[in-house]
């Protein structure tokens, strides 16, 4: 008995617990010899095989009887359930495809958003540069024109050819 359990039974509990454990050990040892014995296992296997074959034959005969009576059999119901399961499988495959497509779309969408952001940023940059150029141009235009120097005519070079 575990130490943390308080019991009003005192020694009687301890004694009965020990007796039980001795009995359990003896039983387990005895069963261990049986349950690992290949002859015993062979016999159990044969017995199980006969049992399941009998169950299978019984089920088959019940199905045949019901069929003769034009009543739905277990196999009929199983067949219907199987059709429903196959439909469910197809739906799941379609769901898989849809989710994959969704993933691809999301990825394309992400890429496209990224591209749009990049292009917008470039356009903004260009606009800023344009604005600064315009400002410089305006500044240049607003300055009073500088007096022009008198141009001196230079003689045209003669073609050496």
């Amino acid at each position, binding site marked *: *008995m*575990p130490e*943390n*359990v*308080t*019991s*009003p*039974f*005192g020694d*009687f*509990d301890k004694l009965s*617990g020990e007796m*039980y454990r001795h009995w*359990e*050990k003896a*039983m*387990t040892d005895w*069963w261990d010899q049986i*349950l*690992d014995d*290949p002859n015993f*296992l*062979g016999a*159990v*296997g*044969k017995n*199980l*095989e006969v049992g*399941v*074959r009998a*169950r*299978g034959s019984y*089920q088959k005969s019940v199905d045949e009887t019901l069929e003769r009576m034009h009543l739905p059999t*277990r196999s009929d*119901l*199983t067949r219907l*359930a*199987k059709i*429903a*399961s196959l439909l*469910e*499988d197809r739906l*799941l495959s379609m769901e*898989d495809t849809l*989710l994959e497509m969704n993933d691809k779309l999301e990825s394309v969408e992400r890429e496209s958003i990224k591209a749009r952001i990049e292009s917008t940023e470039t356009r903004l940059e260009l606009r800023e540069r344009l604005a600064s150029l315009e400002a410089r141009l305006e500044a240049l235009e607003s300055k009073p024109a500088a007096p022009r120097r008198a141009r001196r005519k230079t003689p045209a070079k003669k073609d050496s050819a």
Partner: protein
Amino acid sequence: MSNPALDIASRAAGVAKFLSSEPVRKAKLGQTPHAVIHRDRQARLRWFAPAEPRHTPLFISMPLINTWTVFDLMPGRSVVAALLEAGVPVYLLDWGSAGPEDADLTLGRVIDGTLKRALLRAKRHARATYGAEAIDALGYCVGGSFLSVCLSRYPELARRMALLAAPVDFHASGRLATWADPETFPLDAIVDNLGNFPGSLMKTSFSWLKPGGQTGKWWGLWERFEKPGFPELWATMEAWSAAPTEFPGECYREYVRQCYFNNALVDGGWVLDGRPVDLKQGTIPALAIAAGGDHICTPEAAFGLERAWGGPVETVTLRGGHVGVCIGQSLPKALIAWAEAGG
């Protein structure tokens, strides 16, 4: 001074009163709030959301032989609730119970179909909800064996993998390996005649693995009846073990043939849906958790992952048996430590 005879009579009356109140029928399992976000035949992907997500979401692949509620038995005994409290979002794949229409469901369809699809759905949901780019994956028992096959084929589906009491070296599985002998186990006769492998047969087989377990459970109730909370836990465990699930027949045939008869996860030579099963192709970091007293998946069977897996493998042994490890405190602690290590 107390009279031992009266004390025994009083305890016996208490136990009788407790059992007559139908505690097993009234036990409520799987109480942690969650939502089903995906369905595939009988399988359900259950999403458990923490109040404050702090860690990478965890996908859990449960076994196909019992209900998922062993991870959410009752308040205070829930792996899922402990993970939520630590801030780990949980996506749990509950395989459900196969119907007669699922008898021809192949293992290829289960691993490359249901399991892979559930991982993808969980990953997608985690990305949309938590902004998580990757998820971690945990597989329990046969759900772990299947998860290792799936992640060796599609390593991009998870960042890390943990296997809890999941056999990899099946020939080291103790008595189960002895029983699963092609000479004595009528595998084909069972699947051909019954369709699915019945949950009742699975339950009987497991109870005979440890013959003392059936009497031990009643003795345990008698001995610990006065321990606060124990009768409720006992009834909840009974309710859980009373509801085994049906294993899809064709899937079971291939699973037993390849894993138990041929030990193909270690020895190789298994071609699943036209593609070889090779755990060496699994490169993500893995953690193999074994239960020290496990008689269904021995630590040697679980640690076979070290030899078979392609990536780095760590091993941990926890206290408890195959099911007991799920209701103790050491598993949540180990999983939370693993989650914290992963960020």
